[in-house]
């Protein structure tokens, strides 16, 4: 006979894992690297982990909405590059502020176009965004003739490097994005629609939700957050390089969303989890880089963490006796 008390303990751990599991892994990773490498455990390094995590964390918000609503967007990396080179090339003509805003607007429009293809032409999200992955990247090369755009505009650079009260501007920007994302997801009717559509599109339609409209808006939001990320990343690099910008970005972002506890296939998810997951991925890369581990081995580590975290989730479900 199974001891009922030890079972209860297991269930409690399993339930708490949902809330604090990722945080636990983050602390674990920070602790391991801190003990191994004195360069890792500096305030400066911790801040830079925070700062670099914003690349993934901001773009991840849109992707989290997208995955919660039951869709998928793998065009985000190429989109980031395309809007980056396009927007930054506008600087001489409309100035920094105008260029930044138009980058975000163009990205939103591209997301909107994705949404239209997927809902109105009924092309599966995976196919549409796979096609766009090629198209956006190619357009970025064609537009620049494969010559990076160097960014010297102060406003643009400020978004990736500036400081307010000694806090990095990207971090502030990220906090604003998360506040907005949280309000949208948890406090607005639209957030309910996102989860409803992802949970059961048929029931949503019968409940009077305009499912296509919800999906189109979600893809537009994906673009919006990619636009912001594009400015942050290119500002940080000081240039918009059509080949380098956003390379592999789609998988970093999807990894963070899934690691953060949002289940592929739709339904409720967590922005807090996403935020922590973005920190985990960044800290892992940062720690391994400092220890001069080959960048390919860094990718191996990221892959292992993803698989490990999802495996832990499965164990949790088994303990709780739930079906996924």
């Amino acid at each position, binding site marked *: 006979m199974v001891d009922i008390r030890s079972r209860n303990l297991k269930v409690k751990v399993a339930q708490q894992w949902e809330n604090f599991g990722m945080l636990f892994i983050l602390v674990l990773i920070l602790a391991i690297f801190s003990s191994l490498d004195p360069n890792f455990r500096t305030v400066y390094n911790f801040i830079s982990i925070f700062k670099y995590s914003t690349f993934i964390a901001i773009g991840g918000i849109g992707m989290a909405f997208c995955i919660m609503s039951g869709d998928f967007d793998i065009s985000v990396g190429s989109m980031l590059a395309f809007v980056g080179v396009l927007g930054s090339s506008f600087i001489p003509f409309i100035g920094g502020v105008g260029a930044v805003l138009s980058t975000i607007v163009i990205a939103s429009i591209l997301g909107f176009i994705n949404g239209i293809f997927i809902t109105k032409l009924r092309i599966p999200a995976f196919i549409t965004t796979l096609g766009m992955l090629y198209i956006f990247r190619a357009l970025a090369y064609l537009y620049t003739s494969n010559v990076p755009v160097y960014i010297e505009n102060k406003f643009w650079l400020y978004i990736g490097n500036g400081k307010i009260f000694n806090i990095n501007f990207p971090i502030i920007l990220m906090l604003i994005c998360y506040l907005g994302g949280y309000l949208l997801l948890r406090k607005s009717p639209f957030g309910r629609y996102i989860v409803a559509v992802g949970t059961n599109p048929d029931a949503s339609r019968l409940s009077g*939700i305009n499912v296509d409209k919800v999906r189109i808006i979600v893809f537009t939001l994906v673009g919006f957050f990619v636009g912001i990320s594009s400015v942050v990343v290119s500002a940080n690099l000081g240039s918009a390089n059509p080949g380098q910008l956003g390379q592999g970005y789609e998988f970093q972002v999807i990894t963070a969303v899934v690691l953060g506890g949002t289940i592929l296939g739709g339904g409720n998810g967590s922005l807090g989890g996403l935020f922590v997951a973005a920190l985990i991925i960044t800290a892992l890369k940062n720690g391994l880089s400092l220890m001069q581990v080959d960048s390919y081995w860094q990718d191996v580590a990221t892959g292992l963490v993803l698989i490990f975290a999802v495996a832990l989730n499965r164990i949790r479900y088994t303990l709780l*006796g739930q079906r996924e």
Partner: protein
Amino acid sequence: MNKNNKLCKLENITKTFPGVVAINDVSFDVNLGEVHALVGENGAGKSTLIKMLGGVYRPDRGAIYFKNKKTVFTSTCESQNKGISVIYQEFNLIPDLTVAENIFVGREPKIFGSLIMNWKKLNSDAKKILEDLDSDIDPKKYISDITIAERQMVEIAKALSIKSRLIIMDEPTATLTGKEVKKLFEIIKNLREKGVSIIYISHRLEEAFELSDRITVLRDGKKIGTKKTSDTNESEIIEMMVGKVVKEYFAESSTKHEKKEVVMEVNNYSVADYVDNVSFKLYKGEILSIAGILGSGAHHLLRSIYGAIPKKAGEIYFEGKKVNINDPRDAIKLGIGFVTEDRKDEALLYDMSVLQNLSIIIIKTLTFLKGLFIKAEKEKSVFDRMKDRLDIKFSNYNQKVIYLSGGNQQKVVIGRTLITNCKVLILCEPTRGVDVGAKAEIHKIMRELADRGISILMTSSELPELVNLSDRSIVLYKGKVAAEFDRETMDEEKLVEAQIGQTSSKIIK
């Protein structure tokens, strides 16, 4: 008792899920060559219990003995190999394979050192098993091309082909016609004679009484008792099931409805392949049922009126005005509510709370700052009103809707439409998959709504529900109106005849 007589024995089985004890200390046994009926309301634990025999769940505590040996089933495969077949309500057949392939899936006869499928032997073996069952299904047909009753036959054939000693049937007659049920019963009786044991799960008590040697009643995850079928009667079993004496509730229409105000008029309405030129009027405060067997078009008609599926032709007048309904949104705006027959796939938002499931349809109006943010207080108060009105039982606002019983889930779904203050309520199978108690409550709610002036348009495959609840009934047969009855002229027999197309001589208008 003779120990060798027992095929299968469960001892003090307990299984818990978060927040629920699904099975609480249940012991239960099946004799060789016995038909053992397992009855109980929804949520009593029948499904959980058989899933433990089928290797889907493992018990937290207790032991399972099969053929006098203590056994743990860790997978469906293992339980099958040991001689237990479970035929679930939703069958486990592969639609894109043939009947024969499904019967022998994983055990196909091969030639050339098991490289190539021996199609000839596969099909002839399948044919032989099916013939033993007195069935003439073509083994070469694809599962997707055969009827539900035939699929069930294939499941039984599959169970026999692996020489199962224990076959568990979960609500096998739920989707069968009268004739098919009779045939199934014959097969079950034959199997019993051959020494196969059967656990028979059903809502329909008369079936349990016709077939079984013993009946075990579960309630709230506990075993209430096992009776020899010959020593008991239906009312005793019902009492054991519900724990109190319950009479089926069918409220009489309190105000005799007068055919005065037409709320909705449907003219020459057609839905491609299903509904052919149907016209009717819906009066204020009446319960009108559109009856018909599967494929009669009744469901398609109602779905199309709500805008869930497109119409081919026809007009709808709502409160005197011609309206176009192309999407559920249009219907909701007009004041038409809809409850689907498929709660699981088309109504419940599994990942969301009870509160959110109910409010989703009007959440846009429960807001401040120009619809930007939800007013949590308002949402709760709207929910509370509906909760009290429908007596929805739940533990807290954030409880996920999947953890409610079938009856309470259905109330949430009905509440979702009522919250819009609809004038016409379309109900497809309003009490499918809910227990006896909740069924009576839902019937009472429907009558109250009608008395308050809401017009109800419903369809149901349960005859007593049709006969006792509706003020008028229109019967569809092959997409056309076959008969119309009012409360005085309606009885079960006439309804059945009309539904199977045997009324041409005596249409009652």
